[in-house]
């Protein structure tokens, strides 16, 4: 009986011979895969025997699909190449498809031919190609006015300057001469009908170009608008006009006398001490203003400055611009922009006091609702300089007026009370008067309460100093007091409402109340001003 080892050996020999035989008698494919197991070989054999034809794509001819937009102004086509033994897409077939879609106009045949070539030669889909466009109508443009370059370029220049003040400019005035061209009439542009790709007409519409209409002191002159008089050019989105300007070619002195004019006033000289100029609109003064009284509803621009000698009283409805202010009392509805210095003056503004790059404030009182920007406040000698911000000075002035009248009435009331104690007759006579005075005080108090509750506070107002601020400077923001007790440099004072204190933050080159808020937000931990 053969041993286990012998059987094993037999099996090995037999198996090996079978393998060799298979290799010798099998197909080339089988031979090349000699090492593969039987089962796998059988699977491979099946695959090899699948006819190649079974994978071949079906034959289709080239095709084109066409789509027309809803408004019939655009036609798109997708070009599909032939497959298998299919026929290529021919131009005639595309023409038929275009005709079939009732497209009669606007076909770009060059585009169509290009697509056909790509599609047939490269055998690729060319999809969603615009092959035809309708003709768009051209709008009718009614006549419109274009402002003269000189006037328009001036507007652009102001925009580009942004918040910066160019003190060399007569920045708030654009003066024109009689007969000067202000605007030119552009002729009407006729409209043209359009057509869809299917030949349907498309109506044109009217495109109105907005433009300001000629207003006061302008006149039509052969297709253009000219100035009817010398004056100040004014323009809004709706209208442009000329404000008559009182142009004084020299100083305001004894020869000229005081001025009271409803429009703009241009003074090509100085305003001498003791004279008064009142303008319903703005004032431009090329020289200095002395100890004079100035009252203008618009802006005040003095290319020099004001030497007020503690007597000048200046009231400005809008912006006040000057090189310097000295010894004057100035109230402005708009910002006060001063290039070099404010010395011993009382300045009130409902906006902001903005000093030039090296602008200093020394002495006096500045009340600016939206804050103050300066290069320096005070000096080493420590003159008293008060800066108040965050409060509407006009409301404050009304409250002072109320207080003064109230005090006077209160004194009278005390006097009457004292008199009424002396006898019955006095009591009888004075009682009605006492009641009236008490009622008057009450009414004034009601007004005061109402004013205080409506006081337009700006708690974001700041006092920003690029350079130095010296002891002797008193800063008050929204009634919260702060003394500068040692020299400080490059910082902003702001109100910390929660603490009820003035705090200091690092100075940043920004201005305005909104900017102040931004700066406060950007500064993580303001510390209390050490004084």
């Amino acid at each position: 009986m053969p041993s286990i080892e012998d059987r094993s050996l037999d099996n090995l020999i037999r198996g090996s011979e079978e393998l060799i035989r298979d290799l010798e008698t099998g197909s080339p494919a089988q031979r090349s895969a000699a090492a593969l197991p039987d089962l796998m070989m059988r699977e491979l054999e099946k695959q090899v025997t699948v006819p190649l034809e079974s994978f071949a794509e079906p034959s289709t001819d080239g095709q084109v699909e066409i789509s027309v937009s809803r408004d019939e102004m655009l036609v798109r086509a997708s070009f599909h190449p032939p497959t298998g033994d299919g026929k290529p897409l021919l131009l005639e077939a595309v023409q038929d498809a275009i005709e079939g879609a009732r497209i009669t106009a606007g076909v770009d045949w060059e585009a169509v031919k290009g697509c056909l070539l790509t599609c047939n030669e490269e055998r690729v889909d060319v999809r969603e190609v615009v092959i035809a466009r309708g003709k768009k109508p051209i709008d009718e443009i009614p006549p419109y006015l274009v402002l003269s370059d000189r006037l328009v370029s001036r507007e652009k220049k102001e925009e580009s300057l942004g918040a910066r003040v160019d003190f060399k400019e007569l920045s708030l005035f654009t003066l024109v001469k009689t007969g000067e061209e202000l605007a030119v009439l552009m002729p009407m542009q006729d409209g043209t009908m359009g057509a869809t790709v299917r030949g349907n007409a498309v109506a044109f519409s009217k495109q109105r170009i907005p433009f300001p209409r000629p207003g006061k002191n302008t006149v039509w002159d052969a297709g253009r608008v000219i100035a009817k008089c010398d004056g100040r050019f004014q323009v809004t989105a709706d209208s442009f006009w000329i404000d008559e300007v009182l142009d004084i070619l020299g100083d305001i002195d004894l020869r000229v006398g005081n001025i009271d004019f409803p429009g703009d006033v241009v003074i090509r000289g100085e305003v001498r001490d003791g004279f008064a100029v009142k303008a319903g609109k703005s004032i431009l003064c090329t020289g200095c203003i002395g100890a004079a009284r100035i009252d203008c509803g618009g802006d005040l621009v003095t290319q020099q400055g004001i030497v007020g000698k503690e007597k000048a009283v200046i009231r400005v409805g809008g912006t006040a611009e000057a090189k310097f202010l000295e010894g004057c009392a100035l109230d402005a509805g708009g910002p006060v922009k001063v290039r070099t210095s404010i010395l011993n003056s009382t300045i009130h503004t409902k906006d902001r006091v903005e000093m030039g790059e090296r602008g200093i404030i020394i002495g006096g009182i500045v009340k600016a609702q939206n804050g103050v920007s300066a290069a320096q406040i005070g000096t080493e000698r420590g003159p008293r300089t008060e800066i108040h911000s965050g409060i509407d000075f006009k409301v404050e002035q009304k409250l002072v007026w109320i207080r003064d009248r109230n005090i006077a009435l209160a004194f009278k009331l005390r006097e009457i009370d004292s008199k009424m104690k002396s006898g019955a007759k006095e009591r009888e006579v004075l009682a009605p008067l006492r009641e009236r005075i008490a009622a008057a005080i009450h009414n004034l108090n009601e007004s005061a309460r109402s004013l205080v509750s409506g006081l337009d506070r700006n708690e974001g107002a700041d006092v920003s100093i690029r350079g130095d601020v010296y002891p002797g400077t008193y800063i008050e923001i929204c009634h919260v007091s702060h003394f500068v007790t040692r020299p400080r440099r490059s910082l902003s004072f702001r109100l910390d409402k929660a603490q009820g204190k003035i705090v200091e933050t690092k100075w940043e080159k920004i201005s305005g109340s909104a900017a102040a808020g931004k700066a406060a937000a950007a500064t993580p931990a303001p510390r209390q001003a050490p004084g």
Partner: protein
Amino acid sequence: MGKSILVIDDETMILDAIKIIFEDMGYSVQTTPDPVQGTEVAIAQDFDLILTDIRMPARNGAEITEAVRAKKPNARILVITAYPNDPLAERAIKAGAVGLLKKPFEIAKILDFLA
């Protein structure tokens, strides 16, 4: 009665005026022309606001502020002064006065600090 105010000022006319005006507004107003007595009252009683003149004989507003705040650290004191840059006013603010009133007084500030 509304909030209470103590006014210390050696000018009795101003005291009378403030009393009449602010009592009409509904506040309880106590006045004294004597700064020493005023200090004692300010310490002894509670007020929503204390107004004190800065320059008075016997005791100035800065001293009153220091004395009152030493006893009552939360006392709200407004100092009445002709000039905000008066060194005494500065001293009063350092001692804890909440603000300055320009003479004779400022209605808006008083109402603000009473609000």
